[in-house]
């Protein structure tokens, strides 16, 4: 009985992880008072990458065109429990683990709470899933 329960729990956990990872795949949009961007999160081998499709901060604007050089905001996003992180440089010489540069977590099924570190200070913004 216990074996069955553990098996079910494991399957549920794996399914949950896989489900969240799959939900992350696709296009996400951030449009706040400081900038507007569209990112495409896709699988790059074992990891997830965030490619810039569109960016406009008022002076710099960019539209990705097929065949052009791609720009990424992150390339090695990995899942850690309920969060997806990138830019973890591991332990420092003082053996203090550094904050990841990017942390993505679902706030709803269609929105992400995104934290990026700037000068070791966190900036939080929200990305919204685009419906193709």
């Amino acid at each position, binding site marked *: 009985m216990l074996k069955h329960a553990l098996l079910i729990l494991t399957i549920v956990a794996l399914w949950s992880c896989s489900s969240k990872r799959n939900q992350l795949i696709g296009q996400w949009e951030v449009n706040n*008072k*400081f*900038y507007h961007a569209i990112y495409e999160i896709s699988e790059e081998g074992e990891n997830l990458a965030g490619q*810039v499709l569109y*960016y406009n*901060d*008022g*002076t*710099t*604007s*960019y539209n990705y065109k097929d065949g052009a*050089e791609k*720009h*990424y*905001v*992150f390339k090695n996003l990995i899942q850690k429990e309920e969060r997806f992180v990138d*830019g973890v440089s591991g332990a420092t010489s003082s053996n203090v683990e550094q904050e990841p*540069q*990017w942390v993505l977590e679902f706030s709803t099924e269609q929105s992400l709470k995104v934290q*990026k*570190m*700037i*000068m070791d*200070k*966190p*900036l939080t913004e929200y990305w919204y899933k685009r419906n193709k």
Partner: protein
Amino acid sequence: MKQFILFFGFAALLLGFTSCEKEIRNIANTEDKPIPTDTAAAPIEIVPTDINEKGFELLENIKGHWIGTNLVINFDYEWFTFDYRPISESHIHGIHEGGTMGNLFTSFFVTDFKDTRTIIARNGGVLNGIYRTSYFVLDSVRNDSDGDFYRLVDAVGSTNTMWMELRFKGDSLYFNSYTSQLGTLFPPTRHMTFKAKRYNSYLADAAAAAVNFPQNTPAWDFSGGFPEEYYYINSGDTEAKSCSFLWQGTEDVVTLAALSGDPYTISDHPYIASLQVDVVRNSLIENKKLFLFLSLESLTDASGYLQEDPFNSLVQFPELIETQDSFTFTYLHPGDYYVTVVADANGDGYVSLGDITHVSQSITISPETNPTITLDNITVIN
């Protein structure tokens, strides 16, 4: 009272262009100018824009009292201002005085550089005893349906190190900077995002009339380049990555400037003034943080109570720590001002109910003067 609540966390801004947001890549569409990529930092040749052909109107475009929002590193200033006024026939200046922490300025002036008549920006300030000035060269101009766009790049490292971009459309200004901690991080990324509307231009227009601005004549001479021997060199590097002049010490700004090797210092700026404000603390405001305001209208009524409407007339809003009783506005545009101090009596970090004020005092600042004003009787509880 809500409108009184301004956001002053200034330390981030004062780090100025010396640091950066790490993950947003620069992806500027800047004609054929080189931009950093994710993988390379090859030296970039700086080609100044000849303002005899285009770009001179930048000096005219930046004129005015701009009010808007500002994202600096991760701090969202819901209200922010820069007051740009001419200080000579070919030089326009704006500064943010942060108070105890320091200040940050950016001025734009006509010069000759690399055998080209162009515009250079001088950006810097003093933060916690660290004097920094950096120079940026105009290297990209676009005038099209999106407005007037200008890019000014670090005069040594170009876009490998840091740059600023400005776009004007109608009464709107978009002013962004991209930095790399003076070249220690690559590529540079967005550091400041100031979006603003021109609140007024009559002060800048008056200053322009007074100094016969704008003229296409060099304000300062960079035809021979910069004094390279004074460039700041990052620890571990053998050559400079930025056209920046730094010095750290406890001396006054004039002394720090001289020690830094900055080719032009505050003493070389015409027309500007300074104003020393001395605050007499009483038992009500002892050991309270002080918000010091320089405004175009009185912030209080005749009894000393704060009013909401005049707050958009602020031009400077430094913040003084609990033990500081005196502050000097530097690089100050001459003109008529009101000076008001608000003691943060309730300690919430904002101007709010319960804070203590006085009747705003008016003062006229003449060019190239250094007056002092004393604020006393700060006893009105809002």
